[in-house]
């Protein structure tokens, strides 16, 4: 919980990791390149006093994670989003099991999400069922740019992907987090294209599709799809830290999202350990549009409460203390009405 000026905010950090990118776990130059790329994001967008050394960035102790998220970071509940990357890291970068170790020690603090990969075929479906039972999964994180042998990625519209989404429905896994990356098959297409989200969101109206990084670098395509599909959400991981380095751009992203999809379908995330949540939350609560941006919907305290925690709490059935909820009238149904398409 975070309190400022008489207002209290229930905080759900919807995208956190407990990763191991130490040199001993790096399987090859790709693993090294991957964590260095993350580290450049961290250095590029963090305030100077929040920049870690590369060694600190490689892996965080349990104590540090608890400290950063919950002791210093105001977070009430954090959602682990695994990123396996088993072609890049010996034991994987951040698997469900690695996250699960921490979550079992702190069951009141974490939610563990799983993952699947359509290229694993029938065997992967069985594995998903086991994973769901073992960790009581309510969500999965999918990384479409994951390498697997000779393959450099996949699309949500691949035939096997539909089988996995059907299995998610059967297993009660309602929240599908999607992270696009630079590679897919075929490589000549735009890997960041979110059109496949549109197709599966229509085909599976009972599932929620949370597009991580609000579709960046394809914000406009994401907004357009989310406007038409009421079960598409925008996750703010990676967009949040612009609040420091490029506040006007951050304001434009938030303004565009409020304009196109409204305050009920945007979820806060730090993307820990790329960034820590404390400063992001403090800045966001203080944040207002720069004077020259007059065209956007107001960013109210109510909108901030929803974005920082209440929206994700609904998606994951997290119990919110009565004093941190919104009055019933302000607490509208999930999702805004889709606009008619000409």
């Amino acid at each position, binding site marked *: 919980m975070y309190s400022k000026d008489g207002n209290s905010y229930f905080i759900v950090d919807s995208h956190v990791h407990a990763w191991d990118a130490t040199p001993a776990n790096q399987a090859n130059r790709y693993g090294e390149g991957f964590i260095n790329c993350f580290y450049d994001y961290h250095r590029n967008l963090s305030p100077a*006093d929040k920049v870690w050394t590369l060694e600190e960035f490689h892996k965080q102790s349990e104590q540090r994670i608890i400290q950063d998220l919950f002791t210093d970071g105001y977070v009430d509940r954090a959602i682990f989003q695994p990123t396996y990357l088993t072609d890049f890291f010996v034991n994987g970068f951040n698997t469900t099991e690695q996250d699960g170790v921490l979550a079992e020690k702190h069951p009141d603090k974490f939610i563990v999400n799983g993952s699947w990969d359509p290229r694993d075929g029938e065997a992967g479906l069985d594995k998903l069922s086991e994973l769901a039972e073992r960790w009581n999964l309510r969500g999965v994180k999918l990384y479409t740019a994951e390498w697997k042998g000779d393959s450099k990625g996949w699309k949500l519209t691949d035939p096997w992907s539909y089988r996995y989404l059907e299995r998610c429905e059967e297993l009660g896994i309602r929240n599908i987090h999607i992270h696009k990356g630079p590679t897919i098959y075929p490589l000549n297409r735009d890997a960041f294209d979110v059109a496949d989200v549109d197709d599966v969101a229509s085909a599976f109206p009972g599932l929620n599709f949370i597009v991580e990084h609000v579709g960046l670098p394809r914000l406009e395509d994401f907004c357009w799809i989310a406007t038409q599909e009421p079960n598409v959400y925008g996750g703010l991981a990676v967009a949040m830290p612009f609040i420091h380095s490029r506040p006007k*751009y951050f304001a434009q992203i938030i303004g565009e999202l409020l304009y196109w999809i409204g305050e009920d379908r945007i979820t806060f995330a730090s993307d820990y350990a790329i960034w820590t949540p404390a400063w992001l939350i403090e800045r966001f609560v203080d944040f207002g549009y720069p004077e020259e941006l007059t065209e956007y919907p107001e960013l109210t305290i109510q909108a901030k409460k929803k974005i920082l925690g209440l929206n994700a709490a609904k998606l994951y059935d997290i119990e919110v203390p009565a004093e941190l909820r919104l009055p019933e009238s302000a607490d509208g149904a999930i999702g805004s009405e889709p606009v008619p398409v000409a």
Partner: protein
Amino acid sequence: MITEALATVRDPELDAPITELGFVAAIEQDGGDVTVELRLPTYFCAPNFAYLMVADAYDAVAAVPGVDRVVVRLVDHFASDEINTGVAASRGFTGTFPGLADGELEELRLTFRRKAHRACQEQVAARLLKAGWTMLALAGTTLGEARAALAATRLSEEQALIEFERLRRRRAELGLSSGPEAALLVQDDGTPITAVDLPLQLRMAKTTRISIEGNSGLCRGLLSVRYGLPRPAGVDQAVG
């Protein structure tokens, strides 16, 4: 000459010249032999865009009079070896990544040229709306009339004309008419946008423009931390 040639090569996603983005790390010229070194903001930048920039740089330098031999070397990228070898041997994209691609990159290039064109249109339209134009007037106007109006506005007219000329160039690249009689605001295929459709089309184009500008800022910032360059002025604030 070599720098000028490289300045014609743009990052298709960011719609900016690679010279201005800081992607040209080094140029070496020895008589007719030219070697160019390119670098990108991250190790994992999308390989299709990376390939386009390397191939375009190769073609641009090779077209400079007096140049006999060109080497373009992309450095510090996961697919550096494949791309450098593929471009040098004119293998095309599918030949460079056998089994991983089902076509060349012209469709991708076209998609991003169209996005850039829409963003440029919106920028010009926004200036005219600010100067008091109505949607109806915008839908009925031509490139020639718009240029005259922009030249007459007092608000940073030079910048407005730079943006206008950029729009005209984007139009020409797409093979759309860019003469003074042509409609100012057109669909991807050159059909004028009607006054009814214009508000939504411009609104969408604005989001496209914000996405391109934001992505550009992110990439410039990433390049600066990756290579210890000065923080880009006017794009990112200095850290701290």
